[in-house]
């Protein structure tokens, strides 16, 4: 049906006014620059994809565009008109609608009730509204029935209701935040059909994702964000998934040089046949086998969301695998609690330090106890040894170059890099035998990054076994002794970092070349 209306502007149509133009957008949060000098040009009547790894600043950018947060610098223009967005209400008035990744629907209400909620003034709450919903549903081919109860509907239907909700409020520019994250492949195909339909009706769609094959399939233009700034604008016809992956992870940073191998024969951590069931459809982790020796850094490469987070949670004891075993120096820790695993000598640098690594409103010295509440020098039997813990914190601050005026300030007042150095210092101070490091340099500045790399290398020299999970290929290649690639919960390839190209890694990470399985054979 979309072939009938192929009147969408082609790339040659350069004079058409831009639906959205952001220039020089910068947003700082205490300690981090979330966005810096963002440039974004979205043509009217196109599907524009914004890609970038998690934490690259996509969500902040979208919040700015939807009026949830105000930029510190830069300008926003909608349809050529400069505009200041103070709240989502302003954004909606300007014709911008947002479909969030997590649906915001009341299950026990009907579709009609959900759609009119908060927009009662537009068409009332009765037959006029019902007629409008039917009209929109037919016009855009959304197949939404106003009187269905939301609780009875599937994920795909709910997403269409969310889209209809923003259309109902008069949106001409739709922002979809990772819309395919919750869908099965058939639903993704359907969604893309709907997006093309919206486009053919002259609407503009901004599509946020890190799934590169999907982006290439549906987008007219692609903007790549890395480390908070826009680094490239590409047309899908001219790039491959691999090239896009490279743009996403970048390579502009000081390189992490490998030193001579310190790998020993002693197996420290071993996972065999680890499986983890997801919420229904597929296994989140599927037959994971891996071994890390003392003095070895095992890097796990993969596009975000392919099971890395779950792998860490299983090793740390935060989740129980549905099958398989986890062995720490030969002893089974599959059923052990987080505390037992930490006491047994597993250090943990979590992916999201604010959620999992720190108590932001507690002082540094209490944060230095966190995770090691049962270990010296922090505790003395059942009591907290405050003086010893404070002395230890001061030592960590000095030894790991944590820039802070005092160990009594709250963790939240430090910059991201210094928070991370505190966490690493805390974990290293307990001389762990295994270190699980998830994205250890995410969101930290280049200087802190180099320092953190040195710390991880030092840990390897001291005979620690390190599991390094990262989306930064430079980091993985530079630090690891072995790199394994995870895709859809399975280890699909293994590489020697000395003889691997970025292209090979990118291909295995995205499964774009379809040779993933062969490489796994070769890797053995």
């Amino acid at each position, binding site marked *: 049906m979309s072939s009938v209306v192929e009147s969408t502007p082609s790339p040659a149509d350069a004079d058409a006014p831009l639906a959205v133009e952001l220039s020089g957008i910068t947003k700082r949060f205490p300690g981090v620059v979330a966005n810096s000098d963002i440039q974004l040009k979205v043509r009217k009547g196109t599907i524009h994809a914004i890609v970038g790894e998690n934490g690259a600043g996509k969500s902040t950018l979208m919040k700015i565009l939807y009026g949830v947060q105000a930029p510190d610098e830069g300008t926003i223009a909608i349809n050529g008109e400069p505009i200041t967005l103070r709240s989502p209400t302003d954004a909606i008035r300007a014709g911008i609608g947002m479909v969030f990744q997590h649906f915001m629907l009341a299950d026990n209400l009907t579709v009609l009730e959900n759609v009119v909620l908060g927009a009662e003034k537009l068409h009332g709450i009765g037959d006029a509204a019902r007629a409008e919903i039917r009209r929109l549903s037919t016009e855009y081919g959304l197949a939404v029935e106003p009187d269905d109860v939301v609780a009875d509907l599937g994920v795909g239907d709910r997403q269409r209701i969310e889209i209809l909700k923003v259309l109902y409020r008069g949106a001409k520019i739709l922002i979809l935040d990772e819309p395919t994250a919750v869908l099965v492949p058939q639903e993704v195909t359907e969604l893309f059909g709907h997006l093309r339909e919206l486009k053919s009706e002259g609407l503009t769609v901004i599509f946020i994702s890190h799934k590169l094959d999907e982006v290439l399939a549906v987008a007219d233009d692609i903007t790549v964000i890395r480390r908070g700034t826009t680094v490239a604008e590409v047309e899908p016809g001219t790039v491959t998934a691999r090239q896009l992956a490279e743009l996403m992870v970048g390579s502009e940073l000081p390189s992490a040089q490998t030193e001579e191998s310190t790998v020993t024969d002693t197996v420290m951590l071993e996972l065999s046949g680890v499986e983890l069931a997801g919420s229904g459809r597929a296994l989140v982790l599927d037959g994971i086998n891996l071994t890390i020796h003392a003095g070895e850094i095992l890097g796990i490469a993969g596009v975000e969301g392919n099971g890395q987070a779950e792998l860490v949670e299983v090793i740390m004891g935060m989740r129980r695998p549905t099958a398989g075993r986890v062995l720490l120096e030969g002893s089974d820790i599959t059923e052990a609690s*987080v505390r037992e695993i930490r006491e047994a000598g597993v250090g943990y640098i979590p992916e999201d330090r604010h959620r999992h690594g720190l108590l932001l*409103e507690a002082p540094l010295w209490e944060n230095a106890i966190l995770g090691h509440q049962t270990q010296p020098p922090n505790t003395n039997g059942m009591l907290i040894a405050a003086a010893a813990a404070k002395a230890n914190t001061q030592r960590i601050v000095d030894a790991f170059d944590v820039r802070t005026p005092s160990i009594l300030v709250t963790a939240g007042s430090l910059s991201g890099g210094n928070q991370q150095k505190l966490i690493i210092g805390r974990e290293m101070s307990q001389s762990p035998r295994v270190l699980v490091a998830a994205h250890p340099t995410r969101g930290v500045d280049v200087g802190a990054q180099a320092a953190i790399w040195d710390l991880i290398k030092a840990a390897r020299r001291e005979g620690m076994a390190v599991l390094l999970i990262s989306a930064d290929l430079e980091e993985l290649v530079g630090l690891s002794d072995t790199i394994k690639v995870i895709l859809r919960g399975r280890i699909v390839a293994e590489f020697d970092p000395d003889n691997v190209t970025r292209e090979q890694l990118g291909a295995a990470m995205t499964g774009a070349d379809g040779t993933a399985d062969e490489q796994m054979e070769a890797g053995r």
Partner: protein
Amino acid sequence: MRLDARRIGLGVAAPVLAIAVALLLTTVILLIAGDPVLAVWQVLFRAPLPRQIVAIINEATVLYLSAVAVAIGFKMNLFNIGVDGQYRVASFAAAVFAGAHWLPGWLNIIVAIIVAMCTGALWALIAGLLKVTRGVSEVIGTIMLNYIATYLVAYLLRLAAVKVEGSNATSTQILAEDSRVPGISLEWLIGTPKEIYGLAVLAIVVGIVYWFVLSKTRFGFDLRATGASETAAVASGVNVKKMIVASMVLSGAAAGLVGMPLLFGQDYAYGDTVQAGLGFAGMSVALLGRNHPVGMAFAAVLWGYLNQLSNGLQISAGVSDRLVLIIQGIIVLSVVIAYEVVRRARLRLEQGRVAKELAAQPRQDAAEEVAA
């Protein structure tokens, strides 16, 4: 502990601000209602009489125990709305036990207090278990248990009641003289024959234990960590389900103590005239005192003061003593807002201060390098 003037200043600012706002709003309400503003404040701000001082301390004792029970839950974002039910079930159990006089004198009192703590803990445990096993919100669970407690105790009281000659009141067996806790006389100090509950000492002990456990022990650390960030606590090895059950049990045990000063120092039995609603007043006191052992003591005294002096409102100013409930309500509302405002201000101030101090540091480093 280092005393930081700015920190304490910010800490005291919030409650003072809240109380000021409450007085202002109450004045507005009085004006709208056409009540004599001046007369009302004259009654409420009068220096309490000696007997009133004793009554304030006694009331504060009970409120403080209740506030501590609530605060144990608050500290880990657990809303134990059920202190009310817990202390009534516990008081009843203790009254029945002590009334049986199986044990002599002091032993009877001590064991009865333990019985009260265990009963309160068990009653709270139900809500805790429902939460961790069935995902029932502790708010709903404890509210429901409050209702159940009311009717269960009323029913059991009927069975356990002892008929007193010439009285319609139903109550448990009156405690013998040797099973009562004597009061503490302040006659030498302020010249009133009224006595402070002997078990006021219990409130002080509970306050000290509360402070010690929360800020000095590993358990307290885990509890505070869970309240500050459940995700970070899990990653640090805290078993959150266990902590929920443990803090509900502790909260319930503390709630069990609420009725003890009344039982052993005033009523000597559990009857249908027993004071209700102490659990809810405790929540207000815990909020105003910011779950801080000393802060809650001040808050409890303020609550007792307002309650006692409001008795004179009807006679001296012709205004209902219920006015005090309005004042207390506004204090609690403004205090919640004021604390949030102060909390944010404090974080912003600190971030700014750290950034400023660090901006000054590199130059110093560079100077040191040059010197070296």
